[in-house]
């Protein structure tokens, strides 16, 4: 237990003022090496820590601290870990998930927000933060009439700060692109990495699906949209280099599946893939147990594993160690390498979330698209 917390509860009867002072003086959760103590103050019948870490119980019970209105639970988090969590409060028969009231660090995602615990040794990479020195690229909204989907699709296009019409640029296509901008600071990362010459100036097509669980699950319409509609559109509208080696598909979770599936359906169209926490569920025999939304994914992945071909020459993969998908991601690496694909795989002490994907962008992008730092000697 955290020493300050132990000292507090060893007092015969800590006063509200003592507890107020303790709360005021400490940063929560309490990180002591690899021990992390979560604290809740308030009335409840029970309190649980919900952190969705594969390998830990989904709900860690808090203990009421005698003589106070505090509750606490301690878990062990290895050095460098970053986890997202909520508290589950039980009052009477009601259960409520809340953010940690004592912790201001919050991560957002399309479903809302979670509190964030930075364990000992984790620091947010400085290149994910706005840097006033970095010249800023620009975002432009475009529309594509899609026959594949019989609908108009809106995309965002990122142009680098030094964009010139008479240059040719590599093209990066990002699944869930708007989410990447909102929740994984993709624009800041692109601006910073470009300015620091760690990636080349690149044009980025950011796509967003209205029904990603269907369209990103190995859907041929989506592959057609990317290869037969988006690519020609980008070639016509922007000075993008017209070669597979200059094109990269990127996505996380189901977006990783969509990236792999598109490259597999259209070989020699994409030179590289950046796949983060891909939902690469498969079954060697029998049925999978991930629910019906994964049925098409498993069908595709089983077929892919049987006939992988060469979806791209270079693939960067990353996955959090605390994800249930870590097994599927790890097992895909040798499978791809066995087919001659150059693969780089990075694991992180994190889970299935946008900030994990944010923190891996530098290594992934700079490995797949090395910038001119190599050629610049100031």
């Amino acid at each position, binding site marked *: 237990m955290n020493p300050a917390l132990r000292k507090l509860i060893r007092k015969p009867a800590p006063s509200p003022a003592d507890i107020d002072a303790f709360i005021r003086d400490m940063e929560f959760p309490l990180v002591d090496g690899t021990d992390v103590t979560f604290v809740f103050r308030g009335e409840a019948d029970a309190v649980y820590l919900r952190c969705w870490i594969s390998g830990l119980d989904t709900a860690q019970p808090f203990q009421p601290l005698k003589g106070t209105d505090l509750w606490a639970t301690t878990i062990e988090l290895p050095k460098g870990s970053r986890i997202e969590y909520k508290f589950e409060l039980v009052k009477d028969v009601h259960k409520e998930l809340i953010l940690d009231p004592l912790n201001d660090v919050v991560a957002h995602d399309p479903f809302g927000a979670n509190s964030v615990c930075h364990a000992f040794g984790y620091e947010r990479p400085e290149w994910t933060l706005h840097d006033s020195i970095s010249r800023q690229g620009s975002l432009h909204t475009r529309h594509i009439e899609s026959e594949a989907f019989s609908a108009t699709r809106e995309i965002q296009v990122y142009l680098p700060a030094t964009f010139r019409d008479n240059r040719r640029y590599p093209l990066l296509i990002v699944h869930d692109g708007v989410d990447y901008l909102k929740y994984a600071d993709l624009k800041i990362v692109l601006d910073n990495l470009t300015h620091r010459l*760690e990636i080349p100036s690149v044009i980025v097509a950011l796509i967003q699906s209205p029904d990603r669980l269907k369209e990103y699950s190995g859907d041929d319409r989506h592959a057609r949209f990317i290869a037969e509609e988006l690519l020609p559109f980008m070639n016509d509208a922007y000075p993008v280099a017209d070669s597979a080696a200059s094109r990269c598909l990127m996505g996380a979770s189901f977006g990783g599946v969509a990236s792999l599936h598109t490259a597999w359906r259209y070989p020699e169209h994409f030179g590289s893939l950046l796949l983060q926490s891909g939902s690469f569920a498969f079954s060697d025999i029998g049925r999978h147990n991930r629910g019906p939304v994964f049925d098409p994914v498993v069908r595709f992945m089983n077929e892919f594993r049987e006939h992988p071909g060469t979806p791209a020459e270079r693939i960067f993969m990353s996955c959090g160690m605390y994800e249930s998908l870590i097994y599927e991601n790890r097992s895909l690496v040798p499978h791809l390498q066995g087919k001659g694909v150059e693969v780089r795989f990075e694991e992180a002490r994190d889970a299935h979330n946008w900030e994990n994907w944010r923190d891996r962008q*530098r290594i992934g992008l*700079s490995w797949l698209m*090395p910038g001119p*730092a*190599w050629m*610049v*000697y*100031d």
Partner: protein
Amino acid sequence: MTGKEPLRLLLGPQRPTVNLDRALARSGIAEGPIAVVSAAWQEAEGDIDDVRRLLKSPLTDLGIYRKANELFDANKPLHDAYRLRQESLKEQQRLYRMRLRQLMIAARATLRTEGETTVIAAERRHAISQLRALDRHHLRQVGKIHGRFESAVNGDSNTHLDDVAAALAEQLSHFETVLITGGNIVVLINRLRLFGLHRLLREKNIIAWSAGAMVLCDRIVLFHDKLPQGRRDAEILSKGLGLLPRLVLLPNPTDRLRTRDLLRVSLFDRRFSPAICMTLDSGSFLLFEGETLRESAAAKRMTRNGTFKPVRPA
């Protein structure tokens, strides 16, 4: 200090330590108008106010980056031919890199093998000779690509390339001293070569830092051990201007080289031998008279055993 042969003043990066003014003052290069090549700064070419503040001499930027872009904009066939050459060079570099990786793995493994038997020594020598053979092959292939491009565009009056090159040559003839800045070395060597300036610099005094200094060597060696994606094996880009033969210049080793990795440094030194691999950290300088080193400060050279020692004039 003045001599019959032109002087070459080579400096490390001008950040964080600026030594351009002090080094120039003690170099013996006579005061007078200086032509500037800042093409390696690309869009920032000509932004030389900081340099002006340091030097008393009047400066004229030759603007070769801008002139090349204007030519490309006005002349699609030339631009297309240039792009095609760049694509070929990229492909050549990619294939070279692919082969180099395997040879470097093998060379490192032989150097790591413990023992000093004649068997091991012979394998080490052979592994390094294979590296050198690949480097030579790559240089030849790159030379052929340049040759094809140059024979296609030089002398073609439609390109107006010769006109611009002649005007630049005439402009340059009024200067005894040329200053070449650091920056993107690929852009720099391409622009110098495009206008044939590499043939006109031999008789000039040259002041150069970082990339500007590297292009003066006979081979341009790209290196960076500290990229975010990890270390990368040094690669030969192309021939340089050949004004300083048997020399490999390595600017900013503090930020770019794993200088304490004995095996890596030793392999670097052996691979490019008999050329001498010299580092140029910020604040350092080397002064050559023709090809003869006359003075140095804070520059170091790699050694066969993987350490560094100070560079001293003969």
